């Protein structure tokens, strides 16, 4: 630790004379173009190797993705998820040494309905993202946030039977053949999806319902939290209906550090390990993994720039918001400011998060479902009788929600405009 500080101070004096060019710390030959972790200067080639290697090492170390498994990549279009997509392409390519072996699909969620974008802007953004997705040659699903009103929870035996049947008819094939079959099956599915998309799943009623939902939430903090929950539900729903068992999210180290601190402020301390860890198995059948969690935003931005990884910037709920507009924004600004003066900030938070473990064993699908929060699916950390707040609507969801989701709901003026599937699930749980 002391040594790191010394080197940093030395480097500060060194950089005062910009005419002296620094050599790469790895190959010691080429001129460095980038500094990461405050002290390590890398040249272009060594940085590329380091970046690619980190992705493979992250997946290899954790051994959670099995060959032939269907993995859904959640691509928002932003730099981190676009970078993740390019790493997956790199890892799955034929000439990669010890290539990765799983079957990828991509999901992109258009959230313009919640952030108040015009239809024209949304169409343009989706078209840009789609052209990036199409160039990957993986099946992709473009889902609109409005579709939360169309979700019907599938818990029936017929869906599971269909998935089992596909696996059974194909499992005796040689792995490569299995992969090819899976790919062609998925491609035909994705064409269907695209066609469904063309026949317009966004109706004005759906968009208005969504806008009404978000307008009923008073604070930006609660809006962002609700958006995160709905996004998660949509991704899970797509994963389940299309038969994906893993979902890869593109959260970077910096984002996760910010998420860790804001989640504590939001009252989600109990689920920190799951929210920021490498794998999140609270949903049982679908596991969420975060392979980008070792990369800082700086590394991702530089890699994308230097190696032409296309990404699309889509304005969201908090674009151009002030620092104090929401807890999440405030935390982000705090961490970023601290990071400039103390470059070990993000990595220290990250390393602390790695040491977190869930206190009780992870829930599996066999345990009673009333132990899980209705919205975020973490274990309930409240007693039903505890809450004292006045609920404006007749529906009493309090007993089914964790502390933090209760706070989000409390910020809503009416609870009955929540999407149908949430209300139906609440009814189902209450009847037990």
């Amino acid at each position: 630790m002391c040594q790191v500080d010394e080197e940093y101070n030395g480097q500060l004096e060194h950089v005062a004379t910009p005419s002296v060019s620094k050599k790469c710390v790895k190959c010691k030959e080429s001129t460095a173009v980038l500094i990461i972790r405050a002290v390590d200067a890398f040249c272009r080639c060594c940085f590329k190797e380091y970046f690619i290697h980190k992705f493979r090492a992250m997946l290899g170390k954790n051994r959670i993705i099995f060959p032939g498994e269907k993995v859904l990549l959640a691509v928002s279009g932003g730099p981190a998820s676009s970078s993740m997509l390019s790493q997956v392409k790199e890892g799955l390519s034929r000439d990669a040494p010890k290539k990765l072996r799983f079957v990828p699909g991509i999901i992109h969620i258009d959230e313009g309905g919640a952030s108040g974008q015009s239809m024209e802007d949304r169409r343009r953004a989706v078209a840009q993202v789609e052209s990036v997705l199409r160039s990957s040659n993986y099946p992709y699903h473009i889902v609109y946030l409005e579709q939360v009103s169309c979700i019907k929870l599938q818990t029936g035996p017929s869906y599971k039977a269909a998935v089992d049947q596909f696996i059974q008819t194909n499992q005796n094939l040689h792995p490569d053949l299995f992969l090819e079959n899976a790919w062609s099956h998925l491609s035909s599915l994705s064409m269907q999806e695209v066609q469904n998309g063309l026949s317009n799943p966004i109706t004005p009623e759906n968009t208005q319902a969504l806008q009404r939902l978000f307008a009923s939430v008073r604070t930006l903090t609660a809006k962002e939290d609700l958006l995160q929950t709905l996004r998660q539900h949509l991704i899970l729903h797509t994963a389940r209906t299309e038969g994906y068992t893993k979902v890869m999210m593109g959260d970077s180290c910096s984002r996760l550090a910010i998420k860790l601190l804001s989640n504590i402020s939001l009252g989600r301390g109990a689920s920190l390990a799951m929210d920021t860890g490498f794998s999140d198995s609270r949903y049982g059948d679908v596991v969420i993994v975060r392979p980008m969690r070792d990369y800082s935003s700086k590394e991702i931005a530089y890699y994308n720039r230097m190696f032409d990884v296309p990404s699309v910037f889509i304005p969201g709920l908090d674009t151009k918001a002030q620092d104090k507009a929401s807890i999440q924004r405030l935390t982000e600004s705090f961490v970023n400011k601290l990071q400039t003066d103390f470059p070990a900030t993000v990595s220290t938070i990250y390393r602390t998060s790695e040491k977190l473990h869930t206190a009780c064993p992870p829930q599996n699908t066999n345990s009673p479902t009333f132990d899980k929060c209705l919205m975020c699916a973490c274990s309930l950390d409240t007693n039903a009788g505890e809450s004292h707040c006045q609920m404006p609507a007749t529906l009493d969801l309090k007993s089914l929600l964790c502390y933090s989701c209760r706070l989000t709901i409390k910020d809503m003026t009416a609870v009955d405009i929540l999407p149908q599937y949430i209300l139906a699930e609440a009814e189902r749980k209450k009847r037990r």
Partner: protein
Amino acid sequence: MAAPIALHLEFGGGAELLFDGVKEHHVILPDQSEPWDMKQLLVWIRANLLKERPELFVQGDTVRPGILVLINDADWELMGELRYELQDQDNVVFISTLHGG
């Protein structure tokens, strides 16, 4: 430096929203007796290019934390950050890594 300096500026990651959505700018910095450095460039950008919300781009003397700066495709930390002296035909890129841009 007596001659005016031509620069190619780029904005990405959402920073372009503060510049009317325009990502690429070719600018010519006027003559002055001392050489142009990054610190002065930021002042110049704030005065001439920035269309709204300056606090989202510049903070004090330097860029807002979370905005990365690349000079000729190299990290500006390697070039002296604000003290770097601009040369003719330099390429300066500002990429925002913040959530909402």
